[in-house]
């Protein structure tokens, strides 16, 4: 067993940290306050090879493995603890990988180079008004009409709706193609959203990660070319689960990145801030909290990189079954957001009244990480069901 990163991964972390400190961190407050990621930040990220990092080199990506992608996620979230940029980055890394793996050659050539250049946004559209966890109950449909595919329905709580409508791009979209077959009647397609007849979007006001929009997409008789089908007809459930397995370790990496940065700044603060004649860090009560926070963070971090490592092993060496991957990924996604939320909350409290101000820069992290406790990229209770299903067996699955 070897817990070390490769020399290249260590060097990449150093590089990406330097990049993030120069290009992202100085703009983090502005991104949260204005509710938008400045165009130049996205251009810089694309030029540095961060956007669509897992996409293969033939389409302008770096063909990064998931450990490397997780390193970048962690570093991006350290620089912008609101998570906005991390979300933008990780959905493209996770779902871009899926199109790169299962999309038609024609769709890959048409779509992926613009994602890696940062010209267009690529996201995931799964959740609907009736819920996101019960994918078998989704009601958006796709039918074959001659040479084209026609999509009808709506998607909601979708990240990047405004960005996709503004810059172009679209979504890996989960649709029903054989409603009578429940989850075995789902397919995946690529759904463009900018200037597409039949598509309307709206953006929600949300609690956090304001730099990237969240909203809804209404889809009325939208015709898309047949090559936008991703993978085989009616096999979409399995591709979607695979895509979530790719995106979730990155979600967890973003959470520990934000929490790690918060903890570091908290430690600096309590070493300087004095009360009753001593630095706060001298108080035993503080030291216990610091140790607890670090222990929780390190535990979550190990789970994140174990899940990413297992994915890499699966894709490069055909090791580990989907069941093993499902379990490891679900554990990382279950633990990291909660741990991160608790750490940022504690660090915020260490700052006293100052922690409650925008100037302290911590509250945006708390609001951002909360989205992954609420359920973005998979609800926490669904993670528990996945873990239980793998531990108890399918026959005990409640649904």
């Amino acid at each position, binding site marked *: 067993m070897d817990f070390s990163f490769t*020399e290249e991964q*260590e*060097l*990449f972390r150093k*590089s990406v940290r330097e990049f993030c400190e120069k290009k992202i961190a100085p703009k983090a407050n502005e991104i949260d306050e204005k509710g938008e990621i400045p165009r130049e930040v996205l251009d810089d990220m694309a030029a*540095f090879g961060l956007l669509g990092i897992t996409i293969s080199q033939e389409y302008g990506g770096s063909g990064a493995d998931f450990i490397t992608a997780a390193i970048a996620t962690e570093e991006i979230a350290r620089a912008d603890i609101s998570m906005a940029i991390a979300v933008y980055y990780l959905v493209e890394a996770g779902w871009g990988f899926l199109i790169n793996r299962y999309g038609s050659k024609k769709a890959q050539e048409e779509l992926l180079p613009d994602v890696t250049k940062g010209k267009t946004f690529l996201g995931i559209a799964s959740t609907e008004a009736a819920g996101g966890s019960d994918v078998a109950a989704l009601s958006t449909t796709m039918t074959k009409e001659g040479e084209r595919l026609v999509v009808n329905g709506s998607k909601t709580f979708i990240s990047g709706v405004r960005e996709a409508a503004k810059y172009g791009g679209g979504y890996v979209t989960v649709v029903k193609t054989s409603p009578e077959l429940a989850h075995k009647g789902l397919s995946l397609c690529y759904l463009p959203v900018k200037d597409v007849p039949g598509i309307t979007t709206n953006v929600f006001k949300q609690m956090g990660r304001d730099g990237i929009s969240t909203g809804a997409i209404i889809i009325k008789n939208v015709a898309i070319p047949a090559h936008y089908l991703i993978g085989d007809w009616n096999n979409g459930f399995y591709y979607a689960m695979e895509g979530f397995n790719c995106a979730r370790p990155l979600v967890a990496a973003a959470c520990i990145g934000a929490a790690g940065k918060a903890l570091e700044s908290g430690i600096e603060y309590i070493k300087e801030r004095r009360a009753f004649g001593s630095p706060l860090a001298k108080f035993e009560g503080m030291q216990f909290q610091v140790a607890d926070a670090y222990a929780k963070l390190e535990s979550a971090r190990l789970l994140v990189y174990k899940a990413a490592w297992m994915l890499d092993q699966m894709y490069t060496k055909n090791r580990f079954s989907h069941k093993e991957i499902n379990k490891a990924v679900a554990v990382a996604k279950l633990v990291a957001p909660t741990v991160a939320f608790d750490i940022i909350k504690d660090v915020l409290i260490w700052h006293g009244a100052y922690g409650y101000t925008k100037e302290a820069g911590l509250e945006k992290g708390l609001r951002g990480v909360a989205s992954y406790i609420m359920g973005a990229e998979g609800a926490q209770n669904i993670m528990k069901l996945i873990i239980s299903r793998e531990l108890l067996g399918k026959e005990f699955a409640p649904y």
Partner: protein
Amino acid sequence: MDIIVCIKQIFDLGQIMVDTATKHPITEGVARKISDFDKNALEEALRIKEKHGGTVLALIGGAKEAAKEALSMGADEAVIYSADSDSLGTATILAEIIHKIKYDLILCGEASIDEFSFQIGPRLAETLGIPVLTYVREMELKDNEVVVERNLENRYEVAKARLPALVTVAKEINEPRIPTLLQILDASKKTITEVSPAKPAAGVETLSILAIEMKRKEVILKDTENLARVIISEKS
């Protein structure tokens, strides 16, 4: 244009803590990095190569990780050697290695940011018998000459020298590039050579390094009305 860039790997000074009892710096577990101005020197070499062609060799006092970083930035090859010597010794080691290499231009940072001796560049040029231009904030190559703008105490000086020459660069000359993932992966295909030149006898031997003790006066003012007066009286 074949360029050699002299690079020193140093401790990341921002991470060094001090033992409060002994005043010794604690370097255990502290990350190392390429000294800042040396990175400017490498960046300048890469820009010259991009404009005029040629090669860039990174000559590094330090470990393989610094060589990997230099190669990731774009150096064609790297040579590493042990850096444990004083300024005279280091310049002697560098000269011994460089004697065996064909070059047109040598670039150094104006100083390493851990010791700030400003001596390596001039000492190396002297040993090699080539002209040296120090504190350079702008440079250009023209007709087998290097034309530079130098930062001096209260003026800028424009000067030139015939090649081969040695130039030490200041921080403002450029902003070093940050290697991307693909550049890092490509760098693993490049050559790193390790050399072990004989260590010259030290001219100056460092006996100890202790942190400067900064004692705070801890003067507490009850109001700010007399703040300026108190500060002035403290200064005088």
